């Protein structure tokens, strides 16, 4: 593995009596694409939630680029360069595509009360520039979405919403992207199309690392460098997709979960 970007050290997360993550350790290299797989309820989403500061870890440490970010606030995690999508899409449905994507670029676009309300020259400049930037990014996923930047997201079908959610995550130029079941609610073809788009974006921006949670094994096989398999919060296997797929315990976990 190349240089380590992210490291989990013995992370434990309990919800009352449920142990969602049980002594989970892992590393992610720079520019690596890691697949995080496992049966339902095995703790995949929880590991994202602990990492992004939504839930505090019960025990353990998270290191990002050498910094201890265990239990950092969601905002600090974002500022460190970690962004995510959600398993159940969480866009602001009444807002336009443009507005939704701008929510992802808070780091650059905030400013004081004064510059927001009184002397707005800089604000207008930012709006112009960011509009162009957002349209280009959306355009790299779907040309026809880029022509509809002012339309509410609520009117779009699922696949388009996923794209917007990914654009919202990418607009700030992050270092680590967490994708939680991006293909949920999509057809096979749509899923592969989405993956192509993600890979294309990644090819442009150097060094973006990705952790992807996915049930669609075809996707995992195609795009990941390495996989980690969780079962009941424990890591039961690690390696390339071919390796973990051949693992007896992994097969057992998937069969046992059904």
């Amino acid at each position, binding site marked *: 593995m190349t240089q380590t970007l992210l490291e989990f050290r013995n992370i434990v997360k309990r919800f*009352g009596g449920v142990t969602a993550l049980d002594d989970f350790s892992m590393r992610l290299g720079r520019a690596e694409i890691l697949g995080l797989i496992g049966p339902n309820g095995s703790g995949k*989403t929880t590991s994202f*939630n602990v990492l992004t500061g*939504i839930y505090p870890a019960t025990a353990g440490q998270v290191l990002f680029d050498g910094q201890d970010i265990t239990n950092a606030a969601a905002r600090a995690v974002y500022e460190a360069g970690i962004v995510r999508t*959600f398993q159940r899409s969480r866009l602001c449905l009444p807002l336009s595509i443009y507005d939704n994507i701008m929510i992802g670029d808070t780091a650059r676009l905030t400013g004081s009360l004064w510059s927001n309300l009184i002397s707005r020259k800089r604000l207008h400049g930012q709006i112009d520039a960011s509009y162009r930037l957002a349209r280009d990014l959306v355009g790299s996923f779907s040309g026809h979405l880029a022509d509809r930047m002012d339309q509410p997201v609520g009117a779009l079908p699922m696949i388009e919403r996923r794209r917007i959610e990914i654009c919202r995550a990418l607009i700030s130029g992050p270092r680590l992207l967490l994708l939680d079941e991006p293909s949920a609610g999509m057809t096979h073809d749509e899923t592969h199309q989405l993956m192509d788009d993600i890979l294309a974006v990644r090819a442009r921006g150097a060094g973006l690392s990705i952790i992807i949670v996915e049930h669609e094994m075809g996707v995992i096989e195609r795009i990941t460098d390495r996989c980690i398999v969780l079962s009941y919060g424990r890591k039961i296997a690690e390696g390339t997709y071919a390796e973990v797929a051949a693992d007896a315990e992994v097969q057992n976990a998937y069969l046992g979960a059904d």
Partner: protein
Amino acid sequence: MDFGLIAQYLANGILLGTMYALVAVGFTLFFGVLDVIKFSHGDVLMLGTFIGFTAWLGLEAIGVANPWVQLLGVLICSLGGTALIGAAIAKWLVLPLKKAPQLNTLLITLMLGTAIREAVRLFYPNGSNPKAFPALLPDAAVELGSFSLRADSVILVLAGLGLIGLLNLVINRTRLGLAIRAVAQDEETARIMGINYTLVVLATFAIGSGVAAFAGIMNGLYYNEINFGMGLILGLIGFSAAIIGGLGNLYGAILGGFLFAGLQVIGAALLPFASAYKDVFAFAVVIALMAWKPTGLIPERSSDRV
């Protein structure tokens, strides 16, 4: 400060606490089964008290003079009527709004409370003036030094605490209670288990409203006066009590009710400048408590999944 005065404050605090707890449990029960706040609770209580008062007028008119019989009649009409009203509101206003945003339900029931209050003020005969509620309980009192223990307050407190105990039994020991708890925990599962969801919700609202009406009658019997605005303040206090205790938890509501009464009494007894500030003090402490325990003293189990 002498013993008599302290005892007086204590007795007063217990009476108020019982009353507030009776109102607060309603808020908590409703929240338990439906995850909504029915803010009209206080005004429904007021309506119930007016029903009881009207029943008394009726009994007087037909010549029933025995105070115990009158009391029984008042309680039956008031509690029964209020239970029906509570269930009706649940059926036609709260249940249909189950999917609406929290704020909308809160606002609709707030406005419903206003509508009930105004309707009583405008349409009850001479409704904008206070009514003299009859003293139906014995007015004997035991003197202990400077402290006089009124028989009626003892009876009221015992009855109130008895009702809270009974409610606790119903919730924890009966089939209905089991159903209510099942619905509160997980509506879907409860439905699958064959529980008649709507019926349980309506029963819960009926019970909660009836219990609140009891608090209203208590209020009337103790102060011998009722008015159209009594529900607003009792509702506000009951809501605050349920919240500082922690929503969705019977003990939290009882704790909150007694805590609020305790604050008022402490405010009245100890504030050096003026006891008139007792409510200011009590509500200020409520605000401070919310800063300290943002989900109440006994927090509900949060289930906000991401």
